[in-house]
């Protein structure tokens, strides 16, 4: 088995130490850092994502693999040029005002970080103005909004409206929403650009959007 395949398997099996060792070995062998990422680490997490989609793996396993991926990425990062990664992007993320549930948001943050995205986590109970200010300051590719209850998801339209008013949304900055009480039709109704019902699906969706 080649080293890429070994790496990919190690990510899938969430063997953190092995991923770290193999990534170093690959670099020592003179392989290009971006190839190690694209051909070794990423295929591993993609398999994990697919298995999650098919109900063969569950959140804890996915998180362990994400951790392994992140470890490998940590080894590579000093050697990667920004333009090396085909899918990178920046995500501003937070739980909306009046809501303090952060588990879902934290999972989303973790999956995106592990996949090489830059995540700016605004925390919980984030006011609409703060989302807008962060959009202005960080110029992200995506703004992610999370909520636990129907009473708090009702803050989302206001954020979208404010972003539109300031011209901060468009093809370069899209709003992605999620959380337990949300669904596709609510997302469409409030004019969100994207909706995902899990952190894993969110990563897939964003990757697709960026490569489209």
């Amino acid at each position, binding site marked *: 088995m080649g080293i890429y395949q070994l790496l990919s398997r190690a990510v899938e099996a969430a063997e953190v130490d092995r991923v770290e060792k193999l990534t170093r070995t690959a670099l020592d062998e003179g392989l290009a850092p971006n190839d190690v990422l694209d051909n070794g680490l990423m295929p591993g997490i993609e398999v994990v994502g697919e298995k999650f989609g098919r109900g063969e793996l569950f959140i804890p396993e996915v*998180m362990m693999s994400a951790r392994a991926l992140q470890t490998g990425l940590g080894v590579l990062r000093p050697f990667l040029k920004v333009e090396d990664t085909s899918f990178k992007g920046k995500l501003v993320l937070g739980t909306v005002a*009046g809501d303090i549930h952060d588990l879902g948001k934290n999972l989303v943050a973790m999956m995106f970080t592990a996949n090489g995205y830059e995540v700016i986590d605004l925390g919980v109970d984030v006011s609409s103005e703060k989302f807008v200010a962060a959009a202005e300051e960080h110029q992200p590719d995506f703004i992610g909004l999370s909520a636990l209850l129907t009473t708090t998801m009702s803050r989302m339209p206001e954020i979208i409206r404010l972003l539109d008013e300031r011209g901060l949304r468009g093809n370069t900055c899209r709003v992605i929403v999620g959380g337990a009480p949300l669904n596709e039709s609510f997302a469409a109704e409030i004019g969100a650009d994207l909706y995902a019902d899990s952190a894993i699906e969110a990563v897939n969706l964003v990757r697709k959007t960026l490569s489209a």
Partner: protein
Amino acid sequence: MLVWKPEDIQFDRSEVLRYLGYGSNAAKVGVRIRKMVEQEMDTARTLIAPRGYFRIVDAAPLREWEYFSDAERVAFGVATIGEALETRVKALFAAGEGTRGVLLDAAGSAAAEAVTDLVNREVWRWAKRMGYRTTRRFSPGYGTWSVEGQELVFQHLRDRKVEQLGVTLTPSLLMVPLKSVSFAIKLGRQSMREVNKGRCVSCALEENCPFRGRDDVCRKASGERV
């Protein structure tokens, strides 16, 4: 206020796995995760402060609400495991231990439901003593009752004892601590309509209930044998 010791709270692994999304796939849990689940369940037991409270009120002023139209009295209750577990979950995420964080959080949710079961049981005990039948519990935000029902529940729980309990309702109708559950139960001499059908999952009775899953014949849940 009702207070329990952490060891009085029985939540089992299958509940925790259900919260983690395994559902009927518990067999697919790997050895490593299984061990971590056990560990986090143990940790959870050191972090919970199980408390609850309920009040029983006359249903007459509530009859305009369809949910209570056939009740004589209504019990409003709330249960919590306190804040410490949530705080630990946040700390785990901050330390890059997200997997453990998720497992501990699921254990906390299972524990919160288990405490709710105990508060529920106290209501049933009270009802039985007074010769009332009861319905299963139903909660704002679940089934057909909207989250706005939280206002009604907390209106009836607004007294010093709830303050001692430490559960507050925010203007956006979120309870703090997060790991809290509120509910209502109908009481009456006649049998009453169940608000949420097919809700054995929220029933406080043992797994081995012979009527589990058979709402049509759920006698135990109406307080006959608690």
